[in-house]
């Protein structure tokens, strides 16, 4: 209890906690859950984008997409590493993903139906992710904060690339391309707003996380910031968002926006989204089909070690 008090005092003072420091079990568990969920999101997120690698329309766009998906895998790698400092293993975390115990970001349960989806994911989905993640760069757990600094830098780059690719289509493209972009925005807008999680009044984990300095800004505040930042970008782009209730509120200096379909949110989070089954099945299949490779690598390493000893 003395340790706990000292810990709370450090948090209150704005200190950063390192992996070797003492921490309450619930703080540790909360972080493992959050960091591994974030890591899982990165690797599941490779699937909807990977779906378009074979069909990227130019070699430049193919290269950008390959680099981006690779970055996401990289984020997964160092997020798993950050979680491992808390005493779990990557295999344990993957096990939790594959058995359905661990979650990943629900946004990846929507399909990428056209090439414009790739640009819109960069713009809106990465944009929302950054909005969520920038505060995490000041998270009280230092390894996570350090990982997030790097992640955010790369995500910003992806977000700009996504936006730029849409800009090319909207400015210089054909009518068919413009329609494709608008359609993608229509499909991704609401799911992007849902990425900030339930409304504050319905958010169960938030309060403790705020107190511990894991979370710094509330879901609804982040969502509002996102809308305010994004609508002007939509105007530059020349697309609309599918919300009849959206309008500038001169009084608050913010955009008012329509009601989110929370039934859809909970349905998709709960497993009944368009791609839930397939995303998980794909990851499980990749893992299961790769078992022989991992076994062989282990067997070879043992042989090598034995030989080295014998020599």
């Amino acid at each position: 209890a003395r340790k706990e008090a000292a810990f709370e005092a450090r948090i209150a003072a704005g200190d950063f906690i390192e992996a070797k420091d003492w921490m309450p079990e619930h703080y540790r568990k909360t972080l493992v859950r959050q960091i591994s969920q974030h890591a899982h999101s990165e690797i599941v997120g490779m699937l909807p984008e990977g779906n378009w690698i074979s069909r990227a329309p130019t070699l430049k766009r193919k290269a950008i997409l390959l680099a981006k998906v690779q970055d996401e895998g990289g984020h997964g790698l160092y997020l798993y590493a950050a979680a491992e400092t808390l005493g779990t293993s990557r295999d344990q975390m993957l096990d939790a993903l594959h058995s359905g115990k661990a979650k990943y970001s629900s946004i990846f349960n929507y399909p990428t139906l056209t090439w414009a989806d790739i640009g819109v994911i960069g713009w809106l989905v990465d944009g929302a992710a950054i909005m969520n993640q920038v505060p995490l760069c000041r998270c009280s757990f230092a390894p996570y904060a350090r990982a997030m600094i790097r992640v955010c830098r790369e995500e910003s780059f992806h977000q700009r690339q996504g936006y730029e690719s849409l800009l090319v289509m909207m400015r210089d493209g054909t009518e068919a391309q413009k329609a494709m972009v608008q359609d993608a925005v229509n499909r991704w807008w609401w799911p992007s707003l849902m990425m900030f999680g339930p409304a504050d009044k319905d958010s169960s984990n938030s309060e403790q996380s705020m107190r511990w300095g894991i979370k710094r800004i509330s879901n609804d505040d982040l969502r509002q910031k996102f809308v305010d930042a994004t609508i002007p970008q939509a105007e530059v782009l020349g697309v609309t968002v599918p919300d009849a209730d959206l309008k500038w509120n001169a009084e608050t200096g913010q955009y008012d926006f329509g009601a989110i379909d929370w039934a859809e949110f909970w349905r998709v989070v709960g497993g009944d989204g368009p791609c839930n089954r397939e995303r998980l099945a794909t990851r499980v299949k990749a893992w299961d089909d790769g078992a022989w490779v991992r076994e062989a690598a282990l067997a070879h390493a043992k042989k090598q070690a034995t030989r080295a000893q014998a020599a």
Partner: protein
Amino acid sequence: MSHVSIQVGNRADVHYLLRIADACLILSQRLGEWCGHAPILEEDLALSNMALDLVGQARGLLTRAGQLDGQGFDEDQLAFLRDERQYFNPVLMELPNSADGAGRQPGDFALTQLRNFGVATWLQLLWAALEESRDVEVAAIAAKAVKEARYHQQHAADWVVRLGDGTADSSARMQAALVVLWPYFNELFVDDEVSTAAAAQGLGPTWGDLKSDWQAQMDEVLADAQLKPPKPSAYVPAGRLGIHSEHLGHLLAEMQYLQRAYPGGKW
């Protein structure tokens, strides 16, 4: 960019460069299929990274080939608007990631790594020779690419040894992949008027020039991996003449789809 199919002319230097560019492009396309489906996350990264390097190499050579061809074709027109019979990669590159041709994903990791090793060994020798090309643009592309190819070769060699000298199961899979790929390696070293003309004008080596070094490096790694080279096959694929397997058409249908379906598009 127009969407109508294009045809390159008959210049030997253009065909020589396209044979290399298409090898990079088509293998890159196959490697991209692994993204998100690899046995470990590190390989999702490594295979995407190799795909990315290969796309970069293809872009450089396609651009140069387009200049020499003189019809004003850029890298994208060359990549996306030729008909199947105008692609000049060795058939090896277009084979699906798994031996039986079925299953886009995840594919056979043994075959994938063995092909990567064979191709990277070849490209590493080729790029090293092309660094001496009289064509300074090609030499510049080669100078960058040779480092990438060395890394690809090393990475793939590690896997070939690891899997070949791993479990009984992994060894059997590697040996099966070797039997499948063996005849397709033949094509890498078959010369004709295109490669001899390229050599004569100092553009680059003949394909045959690279054979003994390739064989030596291959033999060494296969020996480390405890794998037995199969008997030579009399089949010599002719992808470099535009005669492909039944797999390329399906690959191109995907790869070219947006360019074909959105004529005049800007991306």
